[in-house]
């Protein structure tokens, strides 16, 4: 299932956040969106998943979601968004309960996604007992449980320290290699973008427009920590973004 954005523009009151964003998100690929702070990357992601209504343009779902997909567009949030009063398995069963999946069937799904995110030993732990990296793994497990067609990841690693970030990037890569998923990955971190993105969409500062789409052809599995090819790509991206970032930094905040 592909996603197509055609001419998406958005205003907060009189304030233009983004303008004329047209983009195809092909299935089985990870599309990274980078841009200076305040360029509306997160807003764009909320629009793609239907959590916000764009002022202009539309988001199209091309074709039906694959069978067995409970929640085609599934988010992974920066702050994890786990219910603190539910255990790890309770947090996952939360998203299954409304689809009438209970008992043994739910147990199977929960067991499977916990195994895939190596969380099996933590099924009965409460979120407050977990480190940030573990919490985000739980959120990833919860997203996998509904068998999404497209994962919408909103700065999923930004709340984590840099070592945990590396570990989770490796986890995401191995998850993708085992079963390629479609994802839109919003980040301000260029090294995440070059490690995980098949294509990288560079947005300008507000009002956000697409400045460039960079394709990274190297297979995910071959990209490693401080890979020289990726460093080159990252430098190119930074050259594109530097002035935008500086100008965005000097702007007064109105939203």
């Amino acid at each position: 299932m592909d996603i197509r954005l055609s001419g998406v523009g958005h205003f907060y009151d009189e304030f233009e956040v983004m303008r004329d964003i047209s983009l195809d998100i092909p299935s089985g690929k990870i599309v990274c969106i980078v841009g200076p702070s305040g360029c509306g990357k997160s807003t764009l992601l909320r629009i793609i998943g239907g959590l916000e209504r764009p002022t202009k343009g539309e988001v199209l779902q091309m074709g039906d979601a694959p069978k067995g997909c409970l929640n085609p567009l599934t988010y992974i949030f920066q702050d994890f968004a786990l219910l603190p009063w539910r255990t790890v398995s309770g947090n996952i069963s939360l998203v299954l309960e409304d689809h009438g999946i209970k008992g043994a069937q739910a147990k199977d799904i929960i067991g499977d996604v916990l195994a895939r995110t190596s969380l099996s030993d933590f099924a009965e732990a409460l979120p407050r007992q977990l480190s940030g990296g573990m919490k985000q793994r739980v959120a990833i497990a919860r997203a996998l449980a509904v068998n999404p067609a497209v994962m919408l990841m909103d700065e999923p690693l930004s709340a984590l320290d840099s070592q945990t970030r590396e570990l989770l990037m490796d986890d995401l890569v191995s998850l993708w290699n085992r079963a390629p998923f479609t994802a839109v990955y919003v980040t301000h971190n260029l090294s995440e973008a070059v490690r995980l993105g098949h294509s990288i969409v560079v947005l300008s500062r507000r009002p956000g427009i697409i400045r460039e789409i960079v394709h990274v052809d190297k297979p995910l599995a071959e990209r490693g920590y401080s890979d020289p090819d990726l460093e080159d790509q990252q430098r190119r991206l930074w050259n594109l973004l530097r002035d935008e970032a500086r100008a965005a930094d000097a702007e007064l905040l109105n939203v």
Partner: protein
Amino acid sequence: MSELTKSAPDEQTTPTPRVVAFRGGGFAPKPHRWIGLAVFLILLALAEIGTQTGFITSLTLPKPSDVLQTFKELYASGLLWKHLGPSLSRLAVGAALGASFGIGVGILIGLFSFIRAGLVPLVAAIFPIPKIALLPLFVIWFGIDEGSKYALIAFGTFTPTVVATYGAVDNVDRTLIRMGQSFGLTWFSIVRKIVLPGAMPGILSGLRISLAIAIILLVAAEMLGAEYGIGAYILEAGALYDLERLFVGVVILSMLGVMVSAVIGFLEKKLLRWRS
């Protein structure tokens, strides 16, 4: 900079090492379990000594030991339960009515903008009315018997519970609600599984205040037309200037307050185990 580099070679002696003084203490409350009880006992002992020696006249304060004696007599005569029973049932019925309506209305205000716009000013208008002033009205509406007492207590607990509840619903983490929506949870599921548990800490701490108000109103209601009840007992003792019995009544009320607070503490422990 030049001062520093110059002075170093001049002084031949090595500088004497000094421990860096600790200055990060305080401003961190720690639990001290027995100090509260000790303060209580010391005050009681001071009152006892003062009244025994005659430093405090018996008209100023009754002897704590006499109060205890009176309490024992009240217990032995069986009158304690005769007063406490009706009081407890009034408190239970009135507070349960007021708190459950309050929580219900508070949640509705928290969830629906129209209800909020309509009811918040109304609640603000009702809140500051001393409910005791309305007792004659309640007597006409609900009868001189238990009805008016239930209504007074219920009405008094209702408003603070509403305010605490909608505040608690407002404070539920919006990102959790967005998460629920993004996973396609139904509206009802979001309210039941995300909003209600998220609002529970605020609702329970609101109940602490509401139930204390309920005890105050219980006494007020019983002072105006009740044969039995702690309030009636205190009123009677007050009219006779029988300070020992007055204090027995007051002590029972305090214990009632401590008990209610303990029940809420138990509920918090049970329902909010997920908090650190």
